[in-house]
């Protein structure tokens, strides 16, 4: 049982990171911390994909044959047959990292604008200010309505 758990240590680490990221995203009131939590969550997904692609004992998938066009090296060709990690998940994660960076930058830009408009980056305070504006608007409208009827 213990061996089963320890053999999968990388998966446990990834699950732990995911949970921490999700928790920060939901529990934190500070908007920047929420974005950091989101980034942590996305990074743990990258690690998950990388883990999927790993082959035990495998190396980087580089074509090791000087005779073929585009081949490299040639000194260790024999022992490298079939023993390279799956490169596809890594490539997918390059795309996912780009997507994550784009999301992060849009999120940070939004926080800058929120700070300009509200003067705070705490979610609770933003909500409170919104509440107050809504109540004030309601009162103003009711007053205007009364005046119109009078």
């Amino acid at each position, binding site marked *: 049982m213990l061996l089963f758990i320890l053999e999968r240590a990388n998966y446990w680490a990834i699950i732990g990171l995911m949970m921490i990221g*999700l928790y920060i995203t939901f529990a934190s009131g500070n908007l920047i911390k929420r974005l950091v939590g989101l980034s942590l969550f996305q990074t743990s997904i990258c690690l998950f994909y990388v883990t999927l692609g790993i082959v035990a004992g495998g190396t980087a998938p580089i074509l090791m044959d000087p005779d073929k066009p585009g081949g490299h090296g040639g000194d260790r060709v024999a022992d490298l047959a079939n023993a390279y990690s799956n490169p596809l998940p890594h490539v997918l994660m390059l795309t*996912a990292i780009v997507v994550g960076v*784009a*999301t992060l930058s*849009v999120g940070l830009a939004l926080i800058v604008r929120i700070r300009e*408009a*509200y003067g705070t980056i705490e979610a609770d305070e933003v909500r409170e200010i919104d509440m107050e504006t809504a109540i004030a608007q309601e009162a103003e409208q009711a007053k205007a309505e009364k005046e119109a009827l009078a």
Partner: protein
Amino acid sequence: MIEAILDMAPRWALLHAPALLIMVPLFLAPLLAILPSGRLSWLISIFATVFALFCAMILVGQVQASPVGVVGYDVGNWPVPIGITLRVDALNSMILLLVAAIGVLATIFSWPTVKAEIPERKHPLFYSAFLVCFAGLSGVAITGDAFNLFVFLEISSISTYVLVALGAGRDRRALPAAFNYLIMGTLGASFYIIGVGFLYSATGTLNIAQIAEMLPELAGNRSVEAGFAFIIVGLGLKAAVWPLHQWLPNAYAYSPSFVTMFLSATATKVALYALIRYLFTVFRPEFAFEQATFTYLLMPLGLAAMITCSFQAVFQTDVRRTLAYSSVAQVGYMILGVSVGTVAGVSAGLFHLLNHAMIKGALFMAVAGVVLTFQGTTIRDFAGLGRTAPWTMTGFAIAGLSLIGVPLTAGFQSKLQLGYALFDQGMWWAVVFVVFSSFLAVIYMGRILEAIFFRPPINPRKSRKEAPILLLVPLWILALANIYFGITTELPLGLARDAAAAAFGLEAF
């Protein structure tokens, strides 16, 4: 009409329609960003969406003419396991047609509202973001690759956050709304990609058709089941399935009018398409865990959405929020149709998807007209508008009646189909929920319509002021479509039935 387009289309368009449909808007978007003039970028956006509609029509025609019902396109001529394929069957050709048609109408109508609500120097950037969003949505609908679907989902979502945040010029609450949407939307996409990772680890491929072929052999595999759960939650978040809809009401209420109209008619619909694709084409309804999902998860959620969100809609004072909550309730109808798990149920859900896009498109266009002329969206602001702006408000009323489901409108036909599908499976009690939810729709639409037509104008400054003609024409096209498709259902129902059959057919995808 579609035959005529197939006849007149040049050869390159026939050959490369799937790629051009995404590429033309996607490559025009950065061009728009460096243009100096907003009007020019508007005209180019119209060109891009009309071209996409042209490609979508070609694809519908080609799918109907094809003996297997599939049009495939290998990007860069790389064959299936290596390259990304675009695959179009009856299901996604219908969604592509919907997105492109709504895109054309929305772009035409956008100019007066964008001019009024967005600062002038941002116009080209605004249209640039819109085209990216449009290309992303079309890409989700057209791609045959699971990871590519994620990328397009994020392309459309990231530009959507920007578009929603641009409502800050009118109301600063758009900013927190956009931020919440960003957090939720990214979580949804991340869940989807975790699910794809599980499927990839089990099957070793990312091509949707290949995954679908291999899954029956992997029955009982835990990572397939985990992948299923993650994908359903992720796409459910994007499609605003109750109770994952919390981002939607604020995002719809505070974004620019044009963005609300476009998103309500397309964004959740495309996510729903992806959900249907996974539920019926990739995973099959015969899988035991999927039957359990239908009975114990999707059906209760659909019913809960219909009832609770209709209730919430009744108590809103803002028209756009009322309509936003009603949107979540309508997603409930579609989920209910899907959860029946039969061809009739899915086709009823898809039929309602088409009709709801027409209904909400028209309603939000009319609201945009009111925002433009009277700068208000509360029900009080709507009082007496039936007299001051009769054309706009009659269009609103037609779509509103269609939303309720009055006979001779499109909304009635889709509820009828949903009722048939439910009765077929002996679920008469679910029909009771549908009728009750329609009754709630009578109340929340009735409140607005009563204010429009029977109350005197509250604000004496309001003079006789109709929305501009650019806004009225698309509005009335959609409103008349609601009546036309309420009388003859042949075209949309045929599309929906073919689409549902394609969703079930393994050989079709």
